[in-house]
């Protein structure tokens, strides 16, 4: 860029723009110039000073909201998102089409896990909602219904919460074991009753997961997902039990119990920047491209093809939890497989920031 400004520089000073002005006036050529430096010894950089494969460092703070059961504040660059988790009690009598639970309290098998997963989905025990606050970025106007972006993000978080099986649904059940009446003298009657006195699920915890973007500078999903995961790890629910006399669930103070969160899926996004923005749409040959990891807002505006990969490297073999690629044909099979490797690197960064 220095050459461009200095060559037009001296005689008419009115035509010389500062770099930020040029970046604003014609963003695509500006980013292209910084990504394709004249001399080969210069590294391609983006407007924000990062290299194409460099992501912004992530900071995670937890338990900053006092009224929520769990909360987190995640910051990557200028994208800041705050997440609060609040548990509400849902008695089974309020669930339409409730199917009574035929398992027992001590089931720990695969079937019960599957059943718990189904319960999460059927009874909507996880309710994520994303709000893009007015003023977090210029494109969000006050007093309008939720934008397509906000609705899309909510759906993606919801799908991933269920698809990745992050929350163990068994931890959200509230059990009640009816006590035996001691007055019955007859042994036979007593034994019969003992058989009947099976523990039953009387209520569920519903987790309301609310996300608020305080500041929005691109790559909302990665930040939102990291915030959801950190907040869920931070969530502690009070001990709840069924009071048969009052016929309601009561909570006890103290002795809060954390949720059972499985794995650490981490989202990693990138956008594909093409050399020719308004070129004839052809087969894409001769059109150079750069895969920009963790794009910021200005870069997102210039890229059409985006990819998000969610990986979990907690076990020895990398498990992929989600791939979302749309809006272009540059990323084929090999590039996506390569990108999963990049996501593994991101996973280690986020793991370190989470502090586990």
């Amino acid at each position, binding site marked *: 860029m220095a050459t461009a400004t200095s060559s037009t520089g001296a005689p008419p000073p009115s035509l010389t723009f500062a770099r930020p002005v040029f970046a604003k006036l014609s963003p695509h050529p500006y980013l292209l110039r910084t990504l394709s430096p004249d001399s080969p010894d210069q590294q391609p950089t983006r407007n924000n000073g990062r290299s194409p494969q460099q992501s912004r460092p992530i900071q995670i703070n937890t338990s900053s909201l006092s009224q929520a059961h769990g909360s987190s504040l995640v910051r990557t660059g200028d994208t800041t998102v705050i997440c609060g988790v609040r548990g509400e009690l849902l008695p089974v009598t309020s669930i339409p089409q409730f199917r009574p639970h035929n398992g027992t309290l001590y089931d720990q098998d695969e079937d019960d896990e599957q059943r718990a997963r189904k319960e999460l989905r*059927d009874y909507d025990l996880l309710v994520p909602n994303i709000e893009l606050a007015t003023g977090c970025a210029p494109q969000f106007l006050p007093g309008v219904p939720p934008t397509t972006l906000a609705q899309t993000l909510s759906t993606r978080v919801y799908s991933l919460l269920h698809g990745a099986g992050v929350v163990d649904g068994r931890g959200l059940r509230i059990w009640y074991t009816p006590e035996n009446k001691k007055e019955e003298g007859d042994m036979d009657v007593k034994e019969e009753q003992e058989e009947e006195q099976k523990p039953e699920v009387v209520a569920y915890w519903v987790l309301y997961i609310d996300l608020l973007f305080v500041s929005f500078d691109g790559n909302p999903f990665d930040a939102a997902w990291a915030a959801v995961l950190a907040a869920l790890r931070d969530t502690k629910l009070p001990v709840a039990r069924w009071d048969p006399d009052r016929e309601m669930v009561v909570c006890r103070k103290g002795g809060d119990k954390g949720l059972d969160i499985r794995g650490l899926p981490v989202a990693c996004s990138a956008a594909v920047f093409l050399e020719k923005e*308004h070129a004839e749409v052809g087969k894409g040959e001769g059109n150079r491209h750069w895969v920009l990891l963790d794009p910021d807002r200005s870069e997102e505006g210039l890229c059409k093809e985006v990819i998000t990969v969610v990986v979990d490297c907690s076990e020895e073999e990398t498990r*992929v939890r*989600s791939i979302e690629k*749309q809006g272009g044909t540059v990323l084929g099979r090999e590039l996506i497989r390569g990108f999963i490797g990049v996501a593994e690197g991101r996973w280690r960064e986020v793991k370190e920031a989470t502090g586990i």
Partner: protein
Amino acid sequence: MTVTTAPEAALGVLPRADGSAKYSHAGYTVTASVNGPIEAQRRDEHPYEAHVDVIVRPAAGVGGTRERHLESILQSSLTQIVLVKNFPRSLVQIVLQVEDAPENDYVNTKLVQASLNFAIMPALFQTSVLALLSAGVPMRATATATAVAIVSRDGTKTSVVDPSPRDVEIARSVHVLAFTSHDELLLAESEGDFTVQEWNHVYETAKDVCCRPVPTKEGMEMILDDEHTNGPDLRHFLRSTMENKVASDLHWK
């Protein structure tokens, strides 16, 4: 359990739209109308290209967040295959009405479901491409899409093309892939729990369904080889549907 039927399609079913198509496959029936290029609303106007607007209407109720997500996926993919640069400042509107969806007897049917429905995406995608072809909207390529689920049955993992709702429910992972007619990967959506090797296998399966090469008409080897029975041949289906439509339109000559 799975109703394996060949896909069916009819073009030009709506008389007032510029183009329309009705497509049914794997239990899903979708009707699409395409109008375009028409005048764009001021906020949608783009100085260099046409805006592709996709509206998904569910079979019952009004669209929610899930439909918005489906719309955004379809919109970004279809923008890539429509020659949007030819029609600056205009709009191509695609309305997709889901008419029929297979029912899952194992779950309580909820009217509003927030999670992404993978099984319906290929039907929506295919219908929009057919409707765009029917409307004569210039495109750089056609595209085909398919859904693949990895189901573990009796300890072994098998991939199921066009999974039923029950398959999706018990599946380890579900994938939707779309390819253009140049064999490029246009869309890839996956969820669940899978490895890179499994995804690779899914890619192969989906590519076989979407981009099977046109059988050579020389010799006897064209349709007789039964090794390729893994799902329908969607590219050939798209082609033959269009050929039939053109033949019937030109019948009077």
